[in-house]
C-alpha cells in the first residue's frame, strides 16, 4: 500500500521529533522519533510493507509488533488527513 502526503502538509524535523503542519487548517502535529522515521520513509515513497521491513531491521524489533504500530499510526495519519491512501 502506498500513502501520499498531500501538498497542504508541510513538515520538518525539530530535534528528534517530526513536526507536521496541515497548512489549510493551521493545525500542528508532532511525531515521536519512531513516528518521525515512519514519516521520512513515507516521504520517500516507501510502501507500508517496506516501512515495516525497514523499521524491523533498524529497531531490531519483531515484525508483528512493528506491523501493528505502523498500522495504528497510518490510521491516525489518514484520519487526520495528513496522508492519503492510494
Amino acid at each position, binding site marked *: 500500500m502506498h500513502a501520499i502526503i498531500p501538498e497542504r502538509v*508541510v513538515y*520538518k524535523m*525539530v*530535534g528528534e521529533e517530526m*513536526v507536521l*503542519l496541515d*497548512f*489549510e487548517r*493551521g*493545525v*500542528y*502535529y*508532532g511525531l515521536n522519533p519512531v513516528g518521525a522515521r515512519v514519516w521520512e520513509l513515507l516521504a520517500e515513497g516507501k510502501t507500508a510493507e517496506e516501512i515495516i521491513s525497514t523499521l524491523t531491521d533498524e529497531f531490531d524489533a519483531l515484525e508483528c509488533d512493528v506491523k501493528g504500530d505502523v498500522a495504528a499510526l497510518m490510521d491516525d495519519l489518514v484520519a*487526520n488527513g495528513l496522508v492519503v491512501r492510494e
Partner: protein
Amino acid sequence: MYDLYDHGRMIADRVRGDAYARAIAATVRPDDIVVDLGTGTGIFAVLACRAGARRVYAIEPSGIIEVAREIAAANGCLDRIEFLQSDARRVELNEKANVLVTDLRGTIPFFTSSLDALIDARKRFLADGGVLIPRSDVIVAALVESPEAYAVHDRPWSAGWEGIDLTPARRLAINGMRKRMIELRELISEPANVVAIDYETIATTDFEATIELGATRDGTAHGFALWFDTQLACGIGFSNAPGSEATIYGRSFVPFESPVDLRQGDAIVIDLAARFVSADDDYLWRWNTTMKRREGESRPLFRQSTFFSHPRKFGMAE
C-alpha cells in the same frame, strides 16, 4: 509589542498620521460612539473626541495604554475615553459603536492576530450601518532584484565564518519574510494585485492567491515585495508602494530559495497563501513558485514557507 519609541516613529509618519486624521474628521459625527482598536498612545481616540464623539472605547493590550491615558488627560478628553487594557477579543462593550478605527497592520495587514481581532470587533462592537476606518486595503506584489535585501537571508549563513559551517541557519533565514524599504529601482516586474480586503465584509483571516509577475527587463529575481494601498475613508488613503513617500510600514521582502535569472518577458508564478494559526496567534505564509519562460516552457522552482523559518515551534495544538 511596540515600545514608546516605536509609537513615536508611528506618530512621526506624516503620511499615515495625516490620512488617519482626515479620515477620522470626515467620518466621526457629533455624539458618535467610537471604538479605537489597538489605541497605542491614544491619538486616534483624541482625534475622535475632537470630531465630536460622545464616547470612545480605546482598547489596547500593552502597557502603553497608561501613556494614552495621560495624553487624553493632557488634551481634555479623559472624561470621554474609556481605556480598556485587554486583547479586544476578550472585551465586552455595553453599547454598539458607529465607528471602528484601527491600524493593526505590520508591513501588511495579515499580521499576528490583527485581522482576527478586527473581524471579531466588527461583529460584536459595530452597530448596523457602522463605518470602519480603514475601509479597504489592497495587497500588491512585485519581483525584486536586490542583492542587498537577499544578503540578509543568505550571505552570512551560506558563506560561513571562521571555518564554521552555518548552512543549517540558512534554511531558516531563506524562509523568513522581513521588513525592508524596497525601492522602485529594485522592482523588475510590474506590480500585481494579490488580494483586496474589504473590511466591512471580510469574514476570514486567511487568503490564498496565485499571481503571475512578468519580468519587465533582464535581471535576477531575488524574491518579491509585498505592500498595501489603503482607502481609509471615501477619497482618503495612501500607499506604501515603492516610489511613494516613505511610511512606517515599509515593505515585506520575501526571498526565493535561490536567485532566479530572468529575461524580459519571463514570468514567475507565485502561489501565495497566508494562514492564521490560532495556536500561535500569528500567520504562517507559504509561497510556491513556478518559472514560466517567455517561450512557454514552465517548471517548478521552490516550495517555501515561514513554517521552516522557526528553529523550534512552540505551542503545538495536537
